[in-house]
């Protein structure tokens, strides 16, 4: 790659510093300050109170529920995302554009509506309501509903990460593999997968972060039963609305903030180690 002197393309120094200052200021106020506040408030009444808040039964239940939900939603969406991206990038078929549009649907719909949809379908007055209560199956206000809502809103992440990546990579390698005798599944595993693994990891990372942090859709579907159907974000809200649990709310929030931080670090690590590869694979 030719190195050229980039100084010719630079803004004058004062403009550069102004832009950097504005960006940092913006990030500082809207991102850093809230995050720091979360930790400060969480620890405001001492480490002992912080620890007690995190080991409270209801809070532990909410942590377990969040982890369980993510453990179901993320693999499901990974499977779906990979399959959809493979179909869209490597094949021609009717309805391809429709599929691509549908994948983007959860992004354009308000999370509250996403949750509402499941209440309308599976709630006691919903379409399947009577049938479900007849068979004593609980979806809304129980784990299945929460998992469904979370899966729906995190639908697009893996697919959207993989589709442009796989489209940029083209089909030559797969065709070569086929001429050499490899069937569909083996071609996918030996040829396609190694080429997409970093994009896949990135997509899974984003999917997981959203699955654990989702509030709106889960709020509608969950019923807010402390100790049973509260995920961590819901538990934070529950604690926050109780004046005596103010600090505890921030304690739990700090866990979510930590999750965000870890996600960001992994993402940066990924880009640092494999950034060149990711960029090259995208054909930049």
């Amino acid at each position: 790659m030719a190195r050229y002197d980039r100084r010719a393309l630079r803004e004058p120094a004062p403009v550069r510093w102004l832009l950097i200052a504005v960006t940092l200021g913006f990030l500082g106020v809207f991102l850093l300050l809230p995050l720091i506040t979360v930790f400060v408030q969480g620890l405001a009444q001492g480490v002992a109170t912080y620890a007690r808040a995190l080991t409270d039964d209801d809070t532990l239940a909410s942590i377990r529920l969040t982890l369980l939900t993510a453990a179901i939603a993320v693999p499901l969406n990974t499977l779906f995302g990979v399959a959809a991206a493979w179909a869209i990038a490597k094949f021609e078929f009717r309805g391809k554009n429709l599929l691509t549009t549908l994948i983007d649907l959860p992004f354009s719909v308000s999370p509250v509506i996403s949750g509402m949809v499941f209440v309308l379908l599976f709630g006691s007055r919903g379409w399947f309501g009577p049938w479900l209560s007849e068979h004593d199956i609980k979806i809304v206000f129980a784990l299945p509903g929460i998992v469904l809502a979370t899966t729906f809103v995190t639908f697009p992440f893996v697919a959207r990460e993989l589709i442009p990546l796989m489209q940029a990579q083209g089909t030559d390698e797969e065709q070569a593999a086929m001429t050499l005798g490899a069937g569909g599944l083996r071609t996918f595993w030996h040829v396609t997968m190694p080429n997409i693994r970093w994009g896949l990891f990135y997509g899974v990372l984003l999917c997981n972060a959203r699955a654990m942090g989702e509030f709106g859709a889960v709020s509608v579907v969950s019923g807010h039963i402390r100790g049973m159907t509260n995920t961590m974000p819901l538990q934070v809200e529950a604690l926050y609305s109780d004046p005596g649990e103010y600090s505890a709310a921030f304690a739990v929030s700090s866990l979510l903030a930590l999750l965000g931080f870890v996600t960001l670090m992994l993402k940066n690590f990924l880009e640092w180690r494999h950034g060149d590869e990711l960029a090259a694979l995208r054909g930049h």
Partner: protein
Amino acid sequence: MDISIHKLSKRFAAVNALHGIDLDIASGELIALLGPSGSGKTTLLRAIAGLEPIDDGRVLFGAIDATKLSVQERQVGFVFQHYALFKHMSVLDNVTFGLRMRRRATRPPRAEIRRRGLELLQLVQLDGMAERYPNQLSGGQRQRVALARALAIEPSVLLLDEPFGALDAKVRKELRVWLRQIHDETGYTTIFVTHDQEEALELADRVVVMNAGAIEQVDTPAMIARQPKTPFVAEFIERRAAATAA
């Protein structure tokens, strides 16, 4: 293996990419499909490989009707213009891929696969490159790996799609000579696509001149040059003569 093509036709939307192509290739021949872009030469090559579905006609590998066979079943060795090497595998793993993908029944033991791979690398003059990765190789080297990879499965026919198109002129000339040598050594029926008349006339036993989805003439290079059958062929060759005279 003899290759026979009967009335092969293919349409892309409303356009006829191939009009009822008839072609017979004897075992061990080195055939060039020569023509301008859009002549259908690559489509024909890919149809033989099974990479392109066809609308009409048959492809025969020896006595077997290969028309209904999948790409995998046809066991063709295909070399792509842009190499299509597996980026995440070493050179040796690339070359041995076809052997490693075989069903357990027909798969040779690991040591044997490795031995064959190294042997092929020697054939294409890339000894010592076994553990390198494609992004560490030059274009010419990559294409030689691609060829070794195709040869590894002992293909029924070797198909090359503008194999030297992505390489600079000097490398192209070297590889041309070398491809002829490899062909003479291994004896596989070989079909390659090119738009370069010089390449076709220099390399091939017979040249198939194509235009707009049909065959204009099939003949030895000498006959094509001396007795062009149609105005198109004459003009095509004349352009070459003019270019080399200039």
